[in-house]
């Protein structure tokens, strides 16, 4: 078991000072090397859960048990440092863990080759397209070869074609590095394409309403009947969450 959450809850104060619960209780177990997609409508607490897992926020209740090792985080908008070029951005987490000099550069060059950005290593973020910026963010998240990679809707702002290319790249990279992944998305097709297991979260306070491993083999064909069946099944769950009245009619 790599990650275990039990009874994790989170509340915020609204503008009038009263408490409202945004998350939980959440109970979840994640195996080493598993690719998990957290799927749910906007505002259901997916990002809050990810921020709690990364330590950016603290939960009000519950326990989180995590295996030893580093973790990487890929943000929705990349969060690249605009004053650094691509290579420096990617080398930055390595410096944070105390790595210096040529070792740093070799590792950065290796991951940049993997994401196809080696030729652009001296470019600055504003000189890159949205897809290239997200590839840089992905490289920065993976350069330390983390045991756990957290991704917060990293492809949400990209066009469909670029998104599909990056999904394939992400899946291949994480497979090669045996990284445990928690990927937040509200895109059902993206989740069905990427995940070993999909966890659907319901409306506020965010709770797990469906937790299901996928039997789909790799490589996945988006046009196959099996893929479409799984996709439709999750779409129905999703629609019931958004409009519960559809559950009686379906």
């Amino acid at each position, binding site marked *: 078991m790599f990650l275990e959450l039990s009874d994790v809850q989170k509340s915020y104060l609204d503008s009038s000072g009263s408490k409202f619960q945004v998350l939980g209780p959440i109970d979840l177990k994640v195996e080493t090397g598993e690719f998990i997609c957290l799927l749910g409508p906007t505002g259901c607490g997916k990002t809050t859960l990810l921020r709690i897992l*990364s*330590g950016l926020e603290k939960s009000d209740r519950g326990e989180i048990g995590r295996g030893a090792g580093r*973790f990487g*985080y890929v*943000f*929705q*908008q990349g*969060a*690249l440092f605009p004053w650094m070029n691509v290579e420096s951005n990617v080398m930055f987490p390595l410096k944070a*863990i105390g790595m210096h000099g040529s070792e740093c550069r070799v590792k950065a060059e290796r991951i940049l080759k993997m994401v196809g950005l080696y030729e652009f290593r001296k470019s600055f973020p504003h000189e890159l397209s949205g897809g290239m910026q997200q590839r840089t963010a992905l490289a920065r998240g993976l350069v330390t070869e983390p045991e756990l990679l957290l991704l917060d809707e990293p492809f949400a702002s990209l066009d469909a074609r670029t998104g599909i290319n990056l999904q394939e790249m992400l899946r291949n990279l994480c497979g090669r590095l045996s990284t445990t992944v928690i990927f937040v998305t509200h895109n059902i097709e993206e989740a069905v394409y990427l995940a070993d297991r999909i966890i659907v979260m319901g409306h506020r306070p965010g709770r797990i309403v469906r937790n299901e491993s996928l039997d789909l083999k790799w490589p996945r064909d988006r046009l196959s009947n099996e893929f479409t069946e799984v996709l439709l099944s999750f779409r129905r769950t999703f629609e019931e969450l958004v409009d519960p009245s559809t559950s009686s009619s379906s």
Partner: protein
Amino acid sequence: MRGEIVHGDGNIKISGRFTVKDLDYVSSALESESSERVTVDLSDCKSIDTCIAARMWSIAEDRIAKGASLDFQGMTPDIEALFKRFSALDDKPVPPAPPHTIRYNFEDIGDKVQATWESLSGLISFTGQSFKALFSGKVRGSITAYYMEQSGVMAVPIVVTLNWLMGVVLGYQAGYQMSQFGGELFMPALLAYSICWEIAPMMTAVLVAGRSGSAFAAEIGTMKVRQEIDALEVMGFNLYGYIVTPKMIALFVVMPLLITVANFAGMAGGLAAGGIFLKMPAVVYIAEVRKALIPFDLYWGLIKGLFYSTIISVTGSYMGMKVRGGPASVGKATTSAVVVSIFLVILVDALMSLIFIHLRPGLSL
């Protein structure tokens, strides 16, 4: 094709299709009926858009409020669904307006005092963490030099100009008043004391708070909005060491230097005022200033500079770190950084003035 409305004796029959273009036509037909009970027959009405439905609904509500009625009959499912949306809106509870009672006013004051205290305690805690990082971390040389250039070198022209002008104004006004009693010769000493004890440190602090304090808040606030601060935190960087201490060190170095420059600029302004308005020779002015000032007067400005630099760098960074949400909050943080910095600078200045009287040789009460 435009729809048709036939009305009379409390009965209105609406036929055909209606869009926003027919708004006036529909309104005038519905409002023209003066009967207490009006029935609207929609059985031949093919379609209406949201705008027409909203107007019909509001006219019906107005009539009900006046004790009359307006009933819709023969609605198609589409039209009924439109009306249901408005009825759902009406059913939503309206939050009660805050009561204007004495108790409410006291609660309001209490909330504001609590919020101010939370902000202040947050700032004190932030200052403590920043000093801890300052004494425990390594200095980021290149970025510190960058802030020294931005906050120090780039500020020299405006600091010199404003302090020189302050010197001219003070020199002229003090000289004019003193000349009424034949005391022009005391003007250089008065001016030197005012400039070195108060005007130069205060003017420099206000300018640096406006230029650099706001820039620090905007820079950190933007990083916060773009999740760059989160990215640094996730990578394990000490945010205080990485973000705040370069700014603190830069201001520790440049503020005393800027105050020293401001001292000389202010006294040069007094020299110009003395020469132009009082016809005082430069050698006399300089001799009088040298007679009045002791080294402690100049050192005091440098000590004040260290306190002011802490206030400006820490407050600017703290306000930037407090940014939540979108770019609009960056603007608010920038304004707060300047206002709070200047307030704290004046507060500390007042306290330091009390101490100064007891510390300066020859000034004890």
